[in-house]
């Protein structure tokens, strides 16, 4: 008998929480982006766990789409970060206050 799904779900919840706290705490935009990846991975783990618990291949198909969207997100996000860094040296999100009144 394999491990009960609730343990995987709890692990995924912990991983999501760590990612969310890291997103709130860190100031480096690249590390914030990595924390978003942590949260996406936690959601993927939840999907795969539910696919097993409900014996449903749809959960795994959805993880496939999440992977593709995450790849596209990383490409565009890093492009934006490169464009921002080309104009200013700072690596912190607090410095990006151009829209502030």
């Amino acid at each position, binding site marked *: 008998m394999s*491990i009960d*799904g609730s343990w995987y779900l709890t692990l995924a919840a912990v991983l999501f929480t760590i990612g969310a706290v890291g997103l709130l705490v860190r100031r480096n935009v690249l590390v914030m982006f990595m924390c978003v990846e942590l949260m996406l*991975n936690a959601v993927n783990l939840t999907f795969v766990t539910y696919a*097993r618990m409900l014996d449903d*291949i749809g959960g795994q198909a959805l993880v496939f789409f999440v992977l593709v969207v995450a790849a596209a997100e990383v490409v565009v996000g890093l492009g934006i970060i490169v464009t921002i860094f080309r104009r200013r040296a700072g690596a912190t999100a607090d410095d990006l206050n151009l829209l502030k009144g």
Partner: protein
Amino acid sequence: MSTVLLAATKVDLTVFVAAAVMVLAGAIGVVVSGNPVHAALSLVLTLFGVAVLFVAQEAHFLAAVQVIVYAGAIVVLFLFVIMLLGVDEHENVRRDPLRAQRPLAVLLGLASLAAIVLLAQGTDWVTGARSVAGAASGPGANVEKLAESIFTRYLLAFEVTSVLLVIAVVGAVVLARRSGEATEDEPEEAGVGAPAGGPKGSTT
């Protein structure tokens, strides 16, 4: 719940515990390491741990894709950007720019974690119809069942995904295209989003 965990075989238990330790250690490493390169390497650890957990749950194709796409492509892209921009200097993670933001963030995180776990436990973790999009277990390879599901039931979503990828590639090229000698004190010009051959891009 612990009796259920102990009922699992020793191998399953060992694999789960080892992968969980990898995942959590990597995640904590991403959050606490001051150097972005170390954070990216910790991210690789987490992604491998998640891939192991995928294998343990018979999602073999997704585990392979996880290693190839995430650990092989996305993290390398992160490292490329870190090296390219030279932002690998140490960030002082001890400094708290906003007073009391850090304890509040941890507190909120713990509260949401408790809410998720308690709510899921209250509903016995899983409810609803089973095998709606097809069975995940049974005879046949995992990749066959996944492919059949993607190319029949989710065909439209698959095609839209390909369009999304093309848009992302075009967007990245437009964003990363060097638009003249942009300096830091120069005012925002339209060259970043302008089509190729713009007034600034054509001068170089």
